[in-house]
């Protein structure tokens, strides 16, 4: 495995809480960060709901895992592609999402947004360019 660097995408297509895939999918991303690969995430379809700001699960008695998204920058997962068409269909704008930021070590640790809004075509091209796609 030494020296291998694969392009890995975590493609999230489901809403949080209704099912566990979003939460357990995030757990893979956090563990995977230790493997030092070329990693990105994509949020498509209901996956964009995972990044919705203001989640508060106290009254449903479930674990609110959304703060963990903010930790991604520290794990060097800094490219979070969010599909524009998926946002539009759901009436969401970028301001409705949690602000997720990272410090760019190649740019004097300037703070930048991890979220990149891209269109569906671009998501298709990104999928095509990966060695591995995890679908949660």
């Amino acid at each position, binding site marked *: 495995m030494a020296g291998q660097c694969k392009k890995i995408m975590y493609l999230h297509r489901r809403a949080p*809480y*209704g*099912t*566990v895939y979003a939460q357990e999918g995030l757990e893979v991303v956090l563990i995977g960060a230790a493997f030092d690969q070329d990693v990105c995430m994509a949020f498509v379809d209901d996956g964009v709901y995972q990044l919705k700001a203001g989640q508060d699960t106290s009254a*449903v*008695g*479930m*674990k609110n895992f959304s703060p963990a998204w903010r930790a991604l920058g520290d794990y060097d997962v800094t490219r979070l592609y969010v599909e524009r068409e998926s946002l539009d269909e759901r009436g969401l704008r970028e301001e409705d999402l949690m602000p997720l930021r990272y410090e760019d070590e190649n740019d004097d640790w300037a703070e930048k947004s991890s979220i990149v809004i891209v269109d569906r075509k671009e998501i298709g091209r990104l999928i095509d360019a990966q060695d591995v796609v995890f679908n949660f």
Partner: protein
Amino acid sequence: MKIGLLVNEGPYQHQAADSAYRFACAALAKGHEIFRVFFYHDGVNNGTRLMTPPQDDRHIQQRWSELARTHGVDLVLCVAAAQRRGICDPDEAKRNAKDADNIAPGFRISGLGQLVEAAIECDRLVTFGD
């Protein structure tokens, strides 16, 4: 009012078990009777005492067991669904020559007739699933 619940999905994977539990608590708080909670399909996986969720998360099995203990709610796992999925009590384990069982306190294993009976006996049947 007499209310029966049907839970069709396992713990953690789907919200069904959480929603059913909240509904049961709210109904009891309002003075209704939860006649029975019937666990079908993967729902039977709610009834294993071997689960150990992270400490900062809810413990779905223990919540159900506690509801049985404090309110006498009848928690029934479908025997056919449970056999397919590996949930058994000491009797079932013996009958199927298994060397262990995993049923949690407050749950019992019985037949699908218990679900149909609940549907007939209860004023309402509310289903939680995927």
